[in-house]
């Protein structure tokens, strides 16, 4: 090879070597010095999840799912949160909202667990199953659900040996009723496939 070529080659290698080495040093320094302790985004994601703690997302609870999302899991696996949560997550993470993944279940109306007290045998299995300690009762005594604490995750239903737990929908009352958005009939049509909004 000509000396010009060799010189050029050496120059190129030298220059990039220097750049690479200094950059690598910087990164190496950063990798140790600024190790990320806890990811604030996980908290933000977790705050958007409904905290039903039902495991339908295939993670044991909302926080694990939040962590998985930050690590790249798709955002459409939480049936209790449904469309609304997916949209919020998409917003936060700058992703395209996806439809709910049916493999994880469907979006249902909010329910609470109700224990038919005269059938309860007091086995405490539901207490163990409840992720938010919403069931009161001691061994061999009747158990009761604190409706205001119950997230409706239905995890207590399956373990009950005598099937005395029902998931019931909360009734609409004058207090919690609100106007629905105007319906389609009276209004102009729309392009939104889902929508009965104007």
């Amino acid at each position, binding site marked *: 090879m000509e000396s010009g070529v060799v010189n050029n080659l050496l120059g190129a290698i030298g220059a990039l070597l220097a750049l690479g080495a200094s950059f690598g040093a910087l990164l190496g320094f950063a990798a140790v010095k600024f190790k990320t302790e806890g990811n604030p985004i996980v908290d933000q994601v*977790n705050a958007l*999840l*409904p*905290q*039903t*703690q039902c495991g339908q997302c295939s993670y044991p*609870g*909302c926080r694990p799912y939040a962590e998985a999302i930050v690590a790249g899991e798709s955002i459409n696996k939480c049936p209790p949160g449904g469309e609304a949560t997916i949209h919020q997550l998409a917003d936060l993470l700058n992703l395209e909202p996806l439809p709910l993944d049916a493999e994880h279940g469907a979006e249902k109306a909010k329910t609470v667990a109700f224990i038919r007290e*005269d*059938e*309860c*045998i*007091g*086995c405490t*299995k539901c207490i163990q199953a409840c*992720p*938010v*300690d*919403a069931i009161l009762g001691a061994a*061999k005594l*009747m158990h009761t659900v604190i409706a205001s*604490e119950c*997230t409706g995750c239905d995890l207590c239903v399956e373990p009950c*040996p*005598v*099937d*005395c737990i029902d998931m019931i929908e909360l009734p*609409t*009352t*004058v207090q*919690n*009723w*609100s*106007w*629905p*958005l*105007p319906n389609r009939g*009276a*209004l*102009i049509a729309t392009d939104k496939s889902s929508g009965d*909004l*104007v």
Partner: protein
Amino acid sequence: MSTIYSFHGGIHPAEHKTESNSAPIQAAPLPPCLIVPLSQHIGLPAKPVVKVGQRVLKGECIAMADGHLSTSVHAPSSGYVSAIESHVIAHPSGLSATCIIIETDGCDEAIAATPHPDWRSYEIGELLGIIREQGIAGLGGAGFPSAYKLNSDEIHTLIINGVECEPYITADDRLMRERSELLEQGIEILQHITGAQTVLIGIEDNKPEAIEAVRTACKHRDWAVVSIPTKYPSGGEKQLIELLTGQQVPQAGIPADLGIVCQNVATATAIAQAIIEGQPLISRITTLTGECITEKGNYEVRLGTPIKYLLEHVGYARDQSQKIIMGGPLMGFTLPNLDVPVVKTTNCILAPGDNELGSETRTQACIRCGHCAEVCPASLLPQQLYWYAKSQSHEQLKAHNLADCIECGACAYVCPSALPLVQFYRAAKGEIKEKSIEQRQAEIAKSRFEARQARLERDAAEREATRAARKAEAKAKAKQDARFAGEEDPVQAAIERAKAKKARLQQSGEADSVSSKLDELKAKVERAKFGLEQAQSSGKEEKVLTALSASVQRLERLLAGEQAKQEQTQEPSE
């Protein structure tokens, strides 16, 4: 004469007051049955203090106020309590709520009243107590318990709201004309209770007779009777305060923050009656008007009177009208049906003719013309609220101060595209409220979940520690070869079997759903029976045994039913 300020926006719809304001107030007849809802006001429903079948007298307290933000409810006439049950009430949802139903006996026998003509000598607390016990809630708007509202310190201005800005309604107009002395006494009591130095009485200038009457009644007082220009919604509390004082109630605040209290004229009169005459709130003046009513006018109506009864009395021709509105045409709501009763806030029943309120216009797209923003008394941008409510962008709605919307309907009134704007806002407000409740619940659930996880971890750690200790011990004892005879738990065994069964079912794939349901039920019965036997043999507590046997019976019933159903469905197909 005090200065009149002005507020942003407002509209001038046709007034339609003359139809009903010419005749004096008449008494409405006593209906055979009164339906008295326990919640006719904002706050907690009252607690019933009567039993079904009990005879009650007119003015007798039938439900007590439940706490401070609540008022009592009284029997509007004498009769028997026939039921305490859920009944459709006057609410836009058309839902039901608990009502006390009284069969009137026609005697209209009243309970002995305790008048307080010497009310000046009472403590303010005592007066407030009387107001609450006599069931006074705001008669002008939302039905806010008056005692609660009046119980504020540092009030310097009392505003009496005789504006009555909505079209059609004339109840306050007639009241001011006919009962101005009582009103004057009521205002005096209110001034006494609140300690206000200034009293401003606001009346729209389209009610000259009322202004005159009130001026005459109050001529020896240093109160200002202010005639304000007719414009909707001058009667809104916040707007009236701005009109009369030039001040604005701070966002998310109440008039008391400015040292102001605002009461409706009818409320003031009711308070005078309650304190001076000892009469509880059992009736109110209601305007009955609209093309479908022949005898339009103002009626003194007992609370609890079914609307149907009332309308029949005033010559309502039923099927002309598509809707009956409780309240005025701008703020009122349509009734789900005619069985609902009159309540404390029923100032008007409007039965409009087919085209009286304008023919149905077709909704079009919002063209952002901005007319709505020009009339909004809250200085909001209704069109933006509409777009964001439609797309359910709650963040944006909050940024555009949806919460400050008073739902007056001025925007929808002027909207050239005839959009149901107010409904959008109400729906959005409901959604936001629901969201915030959910959010709060999620917070609670999260902390409880985390607490539980922590506890479990702690327990596990402890168990691990003891296990380690025990292991060491066991090692020492290993040579001694002491075997523990493990007694199997019957419940555990049953669960085991059920699980096995479930697994089997799952393996067998998608079995016919009916038969698998049957199988499941059968399995459940088996399981329950087994559990019962086990429990019996191991001598469990009686309570457990009864519970188990009850469940066995229930399951058997279910099974039998299911089997019958299945046979039925199979037969015709064969």
